């Protein structure tokens, strides 16, 4: 058993830390630390700085502008970003589509689309879910019919994160209704500015606009935008989902949030004592802290097996369940720690345009909102129920 980083890994960690401290914008960090949504522009400026350093897509091969980071380097980078309150890299292009293009796309597709992800010319979104196809993704109905050099796409996608910002979408579409549902699915890239596409916002219960519905009416898509082979899209989609589920432990982010929560509880008073001294509060907090500490080791154990050449299996499902639930627990206790102040919902209180009364503590501006918004964490990216199905099938063989 050897749990230390190598000298090289330690040096890399120092380099990341110093880059972050030199380059992060304080007002963006403050938004992130208070859970306030950041703007598209905030993301774009950050992507650009990372790209200048070559770190926007650190796991990519060097030939495409990456650093060929291994799992530990990726882990170090993400944990340092999480600690520092850096904005999350928007994953749809560099983290999700790129691996698919590299493995299954044509050389022409790679050469054209990958550089544009780095420069920010394209903002990608993901067209997987449909109103009738959530957990049962293979039942999707959006159709693409070949018509000469084009496909004609009709149907509807939903829960599309940041579609309002995107100029491109990668979609799963039905190109055949024969055989099993999985066998008639293709993976295709669609220009969001094509005629026949309409994006409608879905406002979430906290009042945020992150996700959208997208309607496709006779949308013409060049046939060269098909990735890989027709009707093989399910394979590519599963490959992508495996990628999506790694790195969901979010240990550094949760640790940062616990520190913030502790500060809140030190400042709040219950029975004229700091709330942090209240035995029931302290017990709730300590249990979360221990769960998180355990998750940190569970996550490192998974990373270590990958580093030692073992394939990551359903372990990523364990990480997904724990990561999401622990973050929800923290959000829950944060809300509780604010007492009556938790009624407030003023997410704009940290924006420059806000002219309402000051929200004290600042965390209260969006604490309940974030608590409700983060209920999504156990629903999206394969609901925790689906993760339990996976564990049951792949790890327990039930």
């Amino acid at each position, binding site marked *: 058993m050897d749990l230390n980083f190598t000298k090289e890994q330690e040096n890399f960690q120092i380099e990341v830390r110093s880059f972050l401290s030199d380059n992060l914008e304080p007002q963006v960090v403050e938004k992130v630390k208070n859970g306030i949504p950041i703007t598209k522009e905030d993301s774009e400026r950050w992507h650009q700085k990372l790209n200048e350093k070559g770190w926007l897509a650190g796991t990519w091969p060097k030939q495409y502008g990456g650093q060929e980071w291994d799992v530990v380097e990726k882990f170090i980078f993400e944990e340092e970003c999480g600690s520092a309150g850096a904005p999350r890299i928007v994953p749809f292009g560099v983290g999700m589509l790129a691996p698919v293009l590299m493995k299954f796309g044509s050389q022409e597709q790679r050469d054209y689309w990958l550089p544009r992800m780095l420069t920010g010319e394209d903002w990608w979104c993901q067209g997987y879910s449909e109103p009738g196809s*959530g957990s049962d993704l293979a039942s999707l109905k959006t159709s693409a019919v070949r018509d000469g050099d084009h496909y004609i796409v009709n149907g509807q996608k939903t829960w599309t994160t940041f579609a309002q910002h995107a100029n491109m979408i990668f979609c799963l579409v039905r190109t055949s209704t024969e055989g099993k549902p999985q066998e008639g699915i293709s993976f295709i890239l669609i220009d969001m500015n094509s005629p026949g596409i309409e994006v409608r916002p879905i406002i979430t219960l906290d009042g945020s606009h992150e996700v959208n519905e997208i309607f496709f009416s006779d949308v013409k898509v060049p046939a060269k935008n098909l990735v890989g082979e027709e009707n093989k899209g399910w394979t590519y989609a599963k490959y992508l989902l495996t990628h999506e589920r790694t790195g969901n432990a979010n240990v550094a982010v949760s640790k940062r949030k616990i520190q913030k929560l502790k500060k809140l509880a030190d400042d709040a008073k219950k029975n004229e004592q700091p709330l942090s001294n209240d035995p029931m509060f302290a017990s709730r907090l300590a249990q979360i802290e221990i769960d998180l500490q355990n998750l940190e080791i569970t996550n490192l154990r998974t990373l270590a097996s990958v580093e030692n050449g073992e394939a990551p299996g359903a372990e990523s499902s364990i990480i997904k369940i724990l990561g999401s639930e622990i973050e929800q627990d923290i959000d829950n206790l944060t809300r509780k720690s604010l007492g009556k102040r938790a*009624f407030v919902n003023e997410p704009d209180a940290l924006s420059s345009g806000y002219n309402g009364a000051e929200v004290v503590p600042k965390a209260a501006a969006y604490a309940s909102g974030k608590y409700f918004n983060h209920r999504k964490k*156990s629903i999206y990216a394969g609901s925790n129920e689906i993760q339990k199905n996976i564990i049951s099938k792949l790890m327990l063989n039930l």
Partner: protein
Amino acid sequence: MDFKPSPERQILFDTLKKYFEKEYSLSDRNIAAHSDLGYSKKAWEAMRDLGILESLIDPELDGFGGTALDISTVFEALGRGLVVEPFLEVGILAAKVLSKGNDVQKSLVKKILKNECLPILAHSETDTEYSKSFVETKLSVEADGSYKISGAKRMIKHAAEATHFLVTCRNTGDASSEAGISIACIPTDREGIKIDSFATIDGGRVSDLTFSNVSISSEELVGELGMSYSIVSDAIDTGILAICSEALGIMERIKELTLEYLKTRKQFGVPIGKFQAIQHRMAQLLVEIEQARSSVINATIYFDDETEKEKTISAAKFSIGKIGTLVAEESIQLHGGMGMTWEYDLGHYAKRLVLIDHEFGDEDFHLQKYISL
């Protein structure tokens, strides 16, 4: 033994239920609840016309209700409707306090019924002190026998539109002492009052109030100087019974919405309600909701029993807090993405249900209080 409400109360409940289903659309409610006013004046007036306020108020003050069972029945119906209008704040908290006052103050209760005033209790001071006796706002006696109030009140719902504030304050005693608490009933345009308002997550505006040397005459005290803790305490206990009952109505509605969703939403070719893991979770929710209802019935039974009242009230608020959060979180999860949307009703019920735990003491506070009694 008979747990059914009386026929009159059942009719009232059914009338309100039908009214909310037909006349109080949740999309209109949501627009009003998150507007600058925080509720709909039109809906407020329409619902007053149904006699809801009267059903909360004693006959001697022109109402026709006011018993624990009346309040519980009406607030369960209000919960089903997710009503954001200030029935709790005006019809319970303010009316209860004013009913212990002098004739002028009592007459304000009657004016409430005529929609001629909107008094609001301004009591809570820090975000996390839930003790009913926690008051630091200072009442100082002036040379001429009048008083001045200085201090701050926090998170007072529907305060921005109030005509009167019922301000708790103290001239003696420690911050949490029951002795020394007074209540002043003053118009909200009195000099020295500052109001900062905020939007809320569950609808309705909430305000922080600052009182800077606000002048009070001795006739404006409700009850005797320094002796008004029991008035506030009674009002808050009644408020707890009311919002616990509101939570029951919300939970019943959530149960209906969730069952409907489980029966219609299909994945893998069958309604998701056919999956056993889902069935067992839903069955567990039903069991919990029945227990929550029993806790409220228990508090209602003992509401006029001096020795058992506080204990059963705390047991009910604890049960509602714990079970409410579970029901809210599980129902969202069972709805998947649908439960996350503004457009669909469920999320709004879930938000109010969770936030009820933040009013008048959360589950931890009431469990500790239960232990201490």
